């Protein structure tokens, strides 16, 4: 178990293409950090640099206080779970788990003890003597995690481990990973492009975009106070509505209504409102803005109403029994509106 520190870490490829720009990040011992971002944002590259599978071209990575830039992956005391599991197809599950330990010249009975313990934790004891191809996707995933656990490493690195599973299994395994990490207390870095996975698993989220950190914070911090329009649009489902509005003295005017902002700004701003943060009111209510209906998605517990506000796309989540006309009059929940700078996209206030 160890803390992981990244100082001004950057990565550029031979052609001068820079994929990771000067990342600073301190991960505490036992923390579960999720790197999240769209594909191509450099999150996997960053993880692979921590693992030692990619060279570090700038900056420093330390694990447990030791600088590891030039250290072989096997010597870094980390374990990695790959997206496609990367199990050795010709070895049984038991051999797969034991391989890394055997290479470390660990005593036989210690290997057996660790493998049995991991098998018990992950409930894979019943197929220890099977080959990976005889296992289902979920079982392979468990074996891949087992291979990480038996090492008892300083850190777990997860590279989109759930994206090859079907939706139901993904939710289940997500819960199991969270419990497992809580139980073992091992520092973990988890890479995903799925914001829901990121929100549910992380102690702290690191939102990446274009090789740069957009925001670091707990899931709720990131959800409640997104630092930029990028984070606002990326985290939360359905996505936050973002629309251009004119502000005067901290109040944004949009669709005939008035939306109070946190900061006393004037001029053009980008207004952010989460679909679940608006409430329908009677026509003519003071400050309400108007949504023109386009279509409705029934989700069961809620309905998702899509339409336009002054020509901008806007969605809102309403109770499933809400009555709808051609137009809806909406007011934001108090304090729910986010204001962003119209040019830079940075949060105001």
């Amino acid at each position, binding site marked *: 178990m160890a803390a992981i520190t990244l100082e001004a870490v950057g990565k550029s490829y031979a052609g001068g293409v820079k994929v990771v720009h000067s990342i600073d990040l301190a991960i505490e011992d036992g923390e579960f950090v999720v790197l999240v971002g769209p594909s191509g944002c450099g999150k996997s590259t960053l993880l692979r640099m921590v693992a030692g599978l990619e060279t570090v071209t700038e900056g420093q990575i330390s694990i447990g206080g030791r600088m590891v830039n030039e250290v072989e992956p096997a010597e870094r005391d980390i374990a990695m779970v790959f997206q496609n599991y990367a199990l050795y197809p010709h070895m049984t599950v038991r051999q797969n788990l034991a391989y890394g330990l055997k290479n*470390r010249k660990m005593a036989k009975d210690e290997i057996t003890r660790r493998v049995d313990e991991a098998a018990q934790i992950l409930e894979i004891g019943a197929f220890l003597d099977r080959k990976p191809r005889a296992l289902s996707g979920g079982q392979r995933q468990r074996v891949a995690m087992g*291979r990480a656990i038996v090492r008892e490493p300083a850190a777990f690195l997860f590279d989109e481990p759930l994206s090859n599973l079907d939706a139901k299994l993904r939710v289940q395994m997500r819960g199991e990973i969270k419990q497992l990490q809580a139980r073992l207390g091992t520092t973990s870095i988890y890479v995903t492009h799925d914001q829901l996975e990121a929100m549910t698993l992380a102690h702290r989220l690191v939102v990446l975009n274009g090789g740069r950190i957009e925001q670091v914070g707990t899931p709720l911090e990131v959800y409640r106070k997104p630092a930029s329009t990028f984070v606002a649009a990326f985290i939360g489902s359905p996505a936050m509505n973002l629309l251009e509005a004119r502000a005067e003295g901290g109040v944004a005017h949009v669709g005939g209504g008035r939306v109070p902002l946190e900061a006393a700004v004037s001029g053009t701003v980008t207004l952010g409102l989460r679909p679940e943060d608006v409430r329908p009111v009677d026509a003519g209510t003071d400050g309400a803005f108007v949504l023109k209906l386009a279509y409705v998605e029934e989700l069961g517990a809620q309905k998702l109403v899509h339409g336009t506000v002054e020509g901008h796309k806007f969605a809102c989540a309403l109770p499933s029994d809400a009555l709808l006309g051609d137009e809806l009059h909406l007011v934001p929940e108090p304090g729910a509106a986010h204001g962003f700078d119209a040019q830079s996209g940075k949060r105001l206030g």
Partner: protein
Amino acid sequence: MVENRPILNILAHLVLILGVLVVAFPIYIAFIASTHGPTDFLSGLIPLTPGHDTWHTYMTMLTTGMQTSGMPPLSLQMMNSLIMALTIAIGKISISIISAYAIVYFRFPFRNLAFWLIFITLMLPVEVRILPTYKVVADLGMLDTYAGLTIPLIASATATFLFRQVFLTIPDELMEAARIDGAGPMKFFWDILLPMSRNNIAALFVILFIYGWNQYLWPLLITTDASHYTIVMGIKRMADVADSQPQWNYIMATAILAMLPPVLVVIFMQKLFVKGLIETEK
């Protein structure tokens, strides 16, 4: 197409049976000829029923050979052929699997050049470069040796390509997982790559064994001493007799014996052979 029409089935079987007959009949003739005495062919007619000299013919050929045309016993020639086929097959596989490993998994200067040089040798089979190759082997004093018989045939671009393709289908993550598991390049090769290419190695072994066994031109050139004759070139020697009738019963017995080892290899390795060529379980 999955169709079940009796007439088509019968037709398919007829065609296949006809094919088998066309292939099998000459072999049958060869075998029958080897069971007759040497005089049975002088009439110009080839008998179609077995004769009575089987045991005698085969034993003579295996133990004493045909002294009149300078043929050593077939057992010796078969041993030579076996040594040659095995050396070529194993040598080719070892060299090409290692070079494919280097080309696929290592970044070294002139990697592409090495790859293309190997590629170019595809255009230069033994028959094309036979004179210079002979010269080199002769200058190295390797005429009439097993080394001279086998080494020039060992380098193989095709096998290198086959292994390269196999290695390219193995996901990179597997190599990365092995690196994290503390397996260095040699360990990765032995513990992961070799076992994973097992079927391909077997398939290639079958092909290369038959290739080595069937070599005719090269051993004919390189051996002048009867103790290094291989059986395939021996057949031809026996047919080329001066001033007398070729002894067809002996020649046919030799042909049958020459055919046996490749057939056995195919029969016993058929399963692995097919698996190795079609399977992509990675």
